[in-house]
């Protein structure tokens, strides 16, 4: 029957190369036997329309051939949970590394050109989906290869076949470990110690401008001999840090007075503190002329020490940029987690 031959040829094209002759021979024997039965039942050969309807009922050649493939999935159910976990880790770390590397690159190219820095930030954001796709693709390919190897040599390649490393419930992190110590209620002693430490830190901060050796130690006398001085922006930075500490100390004192120290610190407060910590750093980044260090006597020292000051300014600004990027990422991560938890709670409440 010519239609059956055409059908078998179409199936053959989609079969595994090494086994196609054997599979087609068997399929032909089975289909011919079925055809004989049908024709015996009718007492005549099938018409073209009947043959067409019969082969259509068996199914499209591609689908028929697909059933003979050894493996019809990239990553099977045994490996998939590990794959999904690793994929999430890879995407998160790829994002962090990419953003930090990009910020450092922009900083290294010079912070003077704000406009080009802005354009670069847009480029970073636009390239991020490609970073995700590439990393997801590579991870998927690796896991597909592991799955294929495991399927080809079942049970022979330990630990690829089971993909379940030994574990014990005792090794699991404690409940609430995701939020660290913040999620636990504090003891009265701890709350009191926090206030005491806050007072000591604030006192120390207030004394530093009058007694720089508290910060610099013996380096203070050495710094006096250098031709450099701190730019006025450091005073703004200093007072913002002092304000931040006063604010935090006041909050802790209010907590102590109201007995609120018994409750864990809520997430919104932690995020607010995190966001506030960005302000002094941003002030440094916005320093006039990006000058964090100045020459004590510019007219006489510019020729000898101008380049050193410029280099120091650039280096410190780059370090501050990286710090801002890290703090910002932590803040975004915190906001993302808080939003997800809030969404999950809303969904659960429905």
């Amino acid at each position, binding site marked *: 029957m010519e239609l059956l031959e055409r059908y078998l040829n179409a199936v053959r094209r989609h079969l595994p190369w090494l086994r196609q002759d054997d599979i087609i021979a068997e399929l032909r*024997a089975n289909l011919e*036997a079925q055809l004989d039965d049908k024709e015996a039942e009718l007492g005549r050969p099938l018409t073209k329309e009947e043959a067409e309807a019969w082969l259509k009922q068996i199914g499209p050649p591609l689908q028929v051939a697909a*059933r003979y493939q050894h493996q019809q999935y990239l990553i099977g159910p045994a490996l998939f949970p590990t794959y999904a976990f690793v994929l999430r880790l890879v995407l998160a770390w790829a994002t962090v590394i990419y953003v930090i590397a990009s910020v450092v690159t922009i900083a290294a190219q010079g912070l003077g050109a704000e406009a080009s820095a802005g354009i670069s930030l847009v480029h970073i954001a636009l390239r991020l989906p490609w970073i995700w796709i590439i990393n997801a693709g590579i991870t998927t390919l690796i896991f597909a290869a592991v799955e294929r190897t495991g399927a080809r040599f079942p049970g022979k390649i330990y630990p690829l076949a089971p993909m379940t490393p030994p574990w014990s419930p005792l090794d699991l992190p404690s409940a609430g470990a995701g939020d660290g110590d913040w999620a636990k209620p504090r003891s009265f002693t701890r709350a009191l110690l926090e206030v005491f430490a806050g007072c000591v830190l604030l006192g120390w901060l207030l004394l530093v401008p009058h007694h720089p050796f508290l910060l610099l130690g013996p380096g203070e006398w050495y710094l006096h001999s250098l031709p450099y001085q701190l730019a006025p922006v450091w005073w703004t930075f200093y007072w913002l840090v002092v304000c931040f500490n006063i604010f935090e100390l006041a909050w802790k004192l209010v907590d102590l007075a109201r007995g609120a120290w018994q409750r864990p610190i809520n997430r919104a407060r932690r995020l607010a503190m995190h966001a506030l910590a960005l302000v002094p750093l941003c002030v440094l980044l916005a320093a006039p002329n990006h000058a964090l260090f100045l020459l004590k006597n510019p007219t006489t020292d510019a020729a000898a020490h101008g380049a050193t000051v410029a280099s120091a300014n650039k280096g410190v600004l780059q370090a501050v940029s990286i710090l801002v990027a890290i703090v910002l990422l932590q803040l975004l991560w915190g906001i993302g987690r808080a939003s997800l938890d809030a969404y999950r709670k809303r969904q659960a409440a429905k």
Partner: protein
Amino acid sequence: MTLAENIFENLRMELRRGCLTLAVLAQLRQEYYGYTLRKALASRGMEIDENTLYPLLRRLEAQGLLISEWREEDKRNKRFYRLSADGQEIFVRLLKEWNDINTAITNLL
């Protein structure tokens, strides 16, 4: 197809998948080739689509549960399958499992 019908169809397929293997192993205690096996199963109430049965036979053979032999019958070369020694052992264990599940479900209903 409605969502409920779709869910039912998926669950029905899942339920049948394991049963088909057991049915094929049970039937292949006697030798058959693909088409006659399909007819034998259908005559006992176990209809199996050819696109499911024929690849299943090859998978079971690759797993060592069946042995096959090409032989001429009615002037045509056909591949005959029957249970291997390992297949016989697995079949007995699966049958026990099937009976346990059947008893448990009967007790639940």
